[in-house]
């Protein structure tokens, strides 16, 4: 039974086989094999959620809050419902189950009930025979708001008497990191730098805006085909809102046009499922870019005050920091993003003494949640600024200073966790040193190149 290896050589899928495909066969780990999904993508045949259609399909459209913080005194849908071709105009009252969802804690309304907390919060959702009827219907929904005092900044949000975004108070989460003795650490320092850093909100801007498609199949299962980073969490949350057994809901991911964290939580899924359930028809709901940017999550804006000390030998002795993270109107992953930021505020360096506090604060701003980097990207703006400034004050080469202080196997992180042999920071810094030599680069400045 030997020697039939040749027979295994299969005819390749592609005529004029590209280079990468020819190279690959056995032992693909470590090789740049061609992506499994690339041919549909490069030929335009890949089906994204917004590409789906079915006979009898309706088009969904959402009405977003125009107020940052307001009571809803009434919603008049009569004119909207009268638009020819409109099959459903749904508000919070039409939700069969619980009007709530949320990736970490369920604090967000599917459709705003009595109160809106940010500009862009879904208030009503429409299904109609075509996009124009849906759009017209949305424009005819009348919402009567009673504006409330609002808070737009996490530092203001913590002040006594600040308007409350949620009844439980504006602090979503406070993380404390305490390692060593911070006072002793600063006593030992001969150079201390202290600064305030701010990072702006960032939009994920995946090229595919959020899209979902829903229909009820012959067995009565509610299907949702969508663009999601976690189909199973979506299913769980849809079932709660629609009051359905979880095994009667199916969520399947289509080809996704990027996510970067934005599609981690529910986006269009519950709304499109609601429309399909209420109308009994297939429904497609695709956000416009503008709608997506208003209603979905973003990267947390942060405000950081931090001081960092090093001794004469150029060793870090202590870091103390405080972080205010704007989580916006709802939690999303604000607890964990800002918690992770507190742990990582010092960066990949060894601090014998470390103290940080982070506050994830509700405001009436857009929602901030998970985004590639997850709080650590914001932390890096601070720690790399601090480290560079310390190196400058100590008269040390910035790379040497980092290598001297970076974590190594056996040294501990801010949480006291001891690094294993997989600690690679030194190796990456050394790679940069080598790169600088290879490319003849130096930190000498300034390098004026032209007038």
């Amino acid at each position, binding site marked *: 039974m*030997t020697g039939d290896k040749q*027979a*295994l050589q299969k005819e390749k*899928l592609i005529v004029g086989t590209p280079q990468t495909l020819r190279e*690959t066969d*056995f*032992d*693909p*780990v470590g*090789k*740049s*094999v061609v992506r*499994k999904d690339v041919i549909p993508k490069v030929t335009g045949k890949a089906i994204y959620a917004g590409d789906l259609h079915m006979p009898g399909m309706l088009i969904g459209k959402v009405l977003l809050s125009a107020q940052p913080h307001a009571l809803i005194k009434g919603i008049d849908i009569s004119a909207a419902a009268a638009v020819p071709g409109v099959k459903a105009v749904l508000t919070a009252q039409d939700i069969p189950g619980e009007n709530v969802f949320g990736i970490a804690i369920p604090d967000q309304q599917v459709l705003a009930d009595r109160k809106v907390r*940010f*500009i862009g919060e879904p208030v009503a959702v429409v299904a109609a025979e075509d996009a124009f009827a849906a759009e017209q219907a949305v424009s005819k929904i009348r919402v009567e708001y009673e504006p409330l005092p609002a808070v*737009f900044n996490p530092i203001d949000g913590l002040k006594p008497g600040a308007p409350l975004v949620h009844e439980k108070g504006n602090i979503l989460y406070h993380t404390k*990191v305490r*390692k060593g003795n911070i006072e002793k650490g600063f006593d030992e320092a001969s150079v201390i730098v202290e600064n*305030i850093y*701010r990072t*702006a909100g*960032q*939009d994920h*801007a995946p090229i595919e805006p959020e899209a979902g498609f829903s229909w009820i199949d012959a067995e009565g299962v509610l*299907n949702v085909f969508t663009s*999601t*980073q*976690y189909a199973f969490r979506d299913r769980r949350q849809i079932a709660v809102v629609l009051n359905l057994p979880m095994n009667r*809901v199916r969520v399947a*991911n289509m080809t*996704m046009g*990027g996510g970067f964290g934005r599609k981690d939580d529910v986006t269009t899924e519950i709304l499109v499922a609601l429309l399909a359930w209420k109308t009994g028809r297939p429904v497609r709901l695709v956000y416009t870019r503008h709608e997506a*940017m208003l209603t979905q999550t*973003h990267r947390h804006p942060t405000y950081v005050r931090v001081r960092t000390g090093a001794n004469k030998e150029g060793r870090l002795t202590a870091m103390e920091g*405080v972080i205010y993270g704007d989580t916006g109107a709802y939690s999303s992953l604000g607890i964990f993003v800002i*918690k992770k930021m507190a742990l*990582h505020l010092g*960066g990949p360096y060894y601090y014998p003494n470390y103290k940080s*506090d982070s506050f994830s604060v509700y405001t009436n701003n857009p929602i901030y949640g998970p985004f590639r980097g*997850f709080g*650590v*990207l914001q932390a*890096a*703006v601070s720690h*790399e*600024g601090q480290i560079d400034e310390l190196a400058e004050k100590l008269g040390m080469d910035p790379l040497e200073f980092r290598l001297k202080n970076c974590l190594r196997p056996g040294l501990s*992180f801010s949480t006291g*966790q001891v690094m*294993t042999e*997989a600690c690679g*920071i030194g*190796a*990456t810094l050394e790679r*940069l040193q080598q790169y*600088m030599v290879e*490319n003849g*680069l130096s930190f000498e*400045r*300034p390098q004026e*190149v032209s007038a």
Partner: protein
Amino acid sequence: MKLRGIGVGAMMYGLGYGYARPDFSATDIELAPDGTVTIWNGASELGQGLTTLLCQLVAQELGIPYEDTFIISADTGRTPDAGPVSASRSTYVQGNSAIKACRDLKGPLSELAGELLKVDPDRLIYKDGLVQDQEDPNRSISFHNLAGEMHKRGRRVRGSGYHNITTADVDPETSQGDAYASYAWASQLAEVEVDTEMGLVTVLRLASATDAGKAINPKMVEGQIEGGAVQGLGFALMEEMKVEQGEFKNAKLSTYLIPTAADVPMVEPLIVEVFDPTGPYGAKGVAEPATIPTAPTIFNAITNATGKRVRSTPASPERVLRLLGKLEEEEEETQLTFEDMPYPEP
């Protein structure tokens, strides 16, 4: 005047969720009579290349051609729950579950191959489309013949893998404890040119030394590094949600600017491989590490060029001109003082 400067930045990133949040994955695989393998994994392909990577791992484990794998992903009607795709956990967690599914399938496979080849099943290796005795390579059966035999004899042809890295939570008062199962590492270097008259910062060079542990697909790792660094560059230089009184004022792609092809350097990915014994084939996640250090790296290069420190994102032309003292008014945001942000008590 145009000034050039070099800057570096570094980062560490706890992989996966940490703090007792469920951090698991499951993969099923099935062997067809012709030796091809179908993989079911509940994790989403966002474009990052996860489905390709899982197929690579399965092909490697079973010693079959990559082309003989096919994957179905992220469908509650078909796939097992593999946890979310986030926190740079896909390679690390989902990859491990795929390997475990292969090992699960290898149990009955080796048993039959051992019977057929009259070899101790533990001595069998899976390589080059063959299942062979590692001590006597002439004793072998092709994987696809073995697959056929498995079906003819009604043996189990499905394997399942489950991998869980859920950690204990850190201490609520001090955050002391083992927060994450593992960590990822990256350092970057940027060279910038600052037009001090126009306030424009051009990134001439951006090199990213990223620890992939093991680059399972080097080109995809490079793609993650290049794309991640460009997202970081956008954050560093132009991306800024302008939110006034709760209103996101630039919520359109014509006003919220992300980098075009003309705005970015050819990012140089420098793949570093520090083996992680807990990762699949030693691999770690790279998606987030590739993005995290970029902004401060660019800011440090701006400092190197101009002597001024950027402490707010983005280093837009207007902010750079303010830093250089070219504009009339003070920047509004510098009004935030230490008094506004006291350190909480111990």
